[in-house]
């Protein structure tokens, strides 16, 4: 494999790894990837929001 190929491969691997790490990290923090930027949406933001309070979990306190 040529040096050029190795450079391109390294760039692609880095980009993919960064994208996957970002998505996994979001999942762990309980943010979803809805595009509104979950931390900015009405329900999920705040510096101390627990995963319980965020998008993934159904924690409705009101009636069904």
């Amino acid at each position, binding site marked *: *494999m*040529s*040096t*050029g*190929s190795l*450079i*391109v*491969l390294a*760039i*692609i691997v880095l*980009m*993919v790894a*960064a*994208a*996957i790490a*970002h*998505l996994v990290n979001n999942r762990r923090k309980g943010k*979803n*990837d*809805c*595009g*509104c*930027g*979950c*931390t*900015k*949406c*009405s*329900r999920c*933001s*705040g*510096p*101390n*929001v*627990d995963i319980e*309070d965020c*998008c*993934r979990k*159904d*924690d*409705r*306190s*009101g*009636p*069904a």
Partner: protein
Amino acid sequence: MSYTIALAGNPNCGKTTLFNALTGASQRVGNWPGVTIDKKVGKIRGTSSELVDLPGIYSMSPYSPEEIVSRNFIVNDKPDALINIVDATNLERNLFLTLQLIDMGTPMVVALNMMDMVQSSGDKIDVDGLSKDLGVPVIPISAAKKTGIDELVTKIEQVAGSKSRPVPIRYGSSFESAVSAAEKALEGKVPDDSIRFYAIKLLEGDDDVVEKAPGARNGIKSAIDAFEDEFDDSADSIVADSRYNKIAEIVGKNVKRAPRDEQGTLSDRVDRIVTNRWLGIPIFIGIMALIYFIAMYDSTWGTSPGAWATGWLNDWFEGFGEDVAGWCEENNVEPWLSGLLVDGIIGGVGAVLGFLPQMIILFLCLVILEEIGYMARVAFVMDRLFRYFGLSGKSFIPLLVGIGCGVPGVMASRTIESESDRRITAMSVTFMPCGAKLPVIAMIAGALFGGSVLVGLYSYILGIAVVILTGVVMKKLKKFSGTPAPFIMELPPYHSPRLFNVAKSVFDRAWAFVKKAATIILLSSILIWFLCSYDFGLNMVDIGDSILAWCGEGLKYVFMPLGWGDNWEFSVAAITGLVAKENLIATMGTLFSVEEISEEGEEIWEVLAYLLGKAGALSFLTFNLLCAPCFAAIGAMHRELRTWKSTGFAVLWQCFIAYLVSVIVFAVYGTIVGQEVGTLSYVLCIVNIAIIAYLVWAKDPFRQLNDSEEVKTE
């Protein structure tokens, strides 16, 4: 010391703004009620105390989900203290909740918000007098301008530390006798601290309290009868009247109003025009047309800033792709790696990012409209239209939120009290064009319609029309039937947009768009490139022999009546849009790059125009605006609809109606513009119109379904 402090107040009185000012959080602030749906927690800056932001409520009666969340928290979780935020420009209405909170006996401070607006109107409030009459500390603040915040923090910590309970407000001897009787009946059955609150609720006949203390209301029946006889009214009306009389007395003593212009305030005068019965909707359409003109127009009258910047960025990405391809060739990069980088990643992600300038302009205009208070007027105007079709005007707030993103839009539907309205709204929100669909609108408008504002307007009008259609049809199903819930909405006064809020909001949305392109879209583009470059034996092949072509070939027949022609690429793009709607563009960017169509001298979007034609493109846009939303939004729908059966039904309905409407759009618009429309499309168009007409006008189109439901219930 660390305390738990609750923040309670009426809807749209600046609670979330104060929460952000106190905690340093950056929660979404909306200039319409119902932004806070659930309680949220943050740490007050400079202290170790916790602040709980409760949803906006008008009273402590459990009539809506927000009121239940707030009441349950204050009653059951017993915070150490309460900040009751009050809109100082509208004391009469806001103090009703204050009086109820005082009765609960929790240590509290009243934060008199929007004092800057009171001062600018020339009104004067005697803060000390108000504090004396209410029996609680009152701190004048402006949450938006961050004035009085430090004093508020100091006072609330002091009140929470000293546990100083508010002095109950007395309403007259007969009232107090009835309350005393109720308090005696409730002794030992409810917490002593809040016994006055429960006693008044018992007099009102509050279901929760009656249930909590069985037999207590019957035990004081004679006292209640005497109370009602004396005032010749029901107990709950007497309680409300007494509170409003007390509020009138307190406000009369402590507020001096400056003389008002006979024509009303500037907000009143503007509202007379923008919320006018006949002008309201045309003005809304005009404003949206102007926004799309600034963001997208590129035709006879010149090029708009948005279209110019997008054109420039697209050219840059194209040039960048060519430079990278050249570099790869010079450096003997393996063809598959070069293809992946240039066609897959740059082609896919670049196609999406190219629309960033137009997105920024659209976000900017929509945020400004929300900031100044216009969007609340839109909800008010739409209420009339919605009620005409038997829907609740309250449904429009989630639709407005859904213009930003479908996920919070679907979540916002939980503010609707009526179960059926709530479910219909949750399954309709994603018909509105969300932020992710804006680049698709921009692409179709730019590629085929010279950036015409009509494409943008069409998308919103289509969204609203299908929401109404869904509401009308669903109401005929037994489980969704019922009268629409009443919609009470306060229109906030207009104010100039705050630069920081606007800049932050636009940056957040634009950054979310870029992040999404660099993550989900990037990974999807790589997958799409792989699927369209390899066959099942993992050999690199021409796109026509690829895995994706094999899948798309089967799908394309389903979409042929929609005018997408013999091109499987569009069917595949519609399916990849389920991951994220921007993926539509990334998929076409990747596919057309791999097919090397653009290298023949044509821009990708020109190829799109050539393959679809105007009618096919409009049907493609229609289908993708209305069909099942992205997975994140489907997940949100599931959380609101609760069962996969209901969610599946909602997704099926969305795809069904998208297909029906797209065929009609293709056949009708194709005939108008003289595009070739096949016999199958014409036949399906007539059948689809008949189906829609039957669903709308038939008295009971779901008779069998409703009957089987009835049998199950029995």
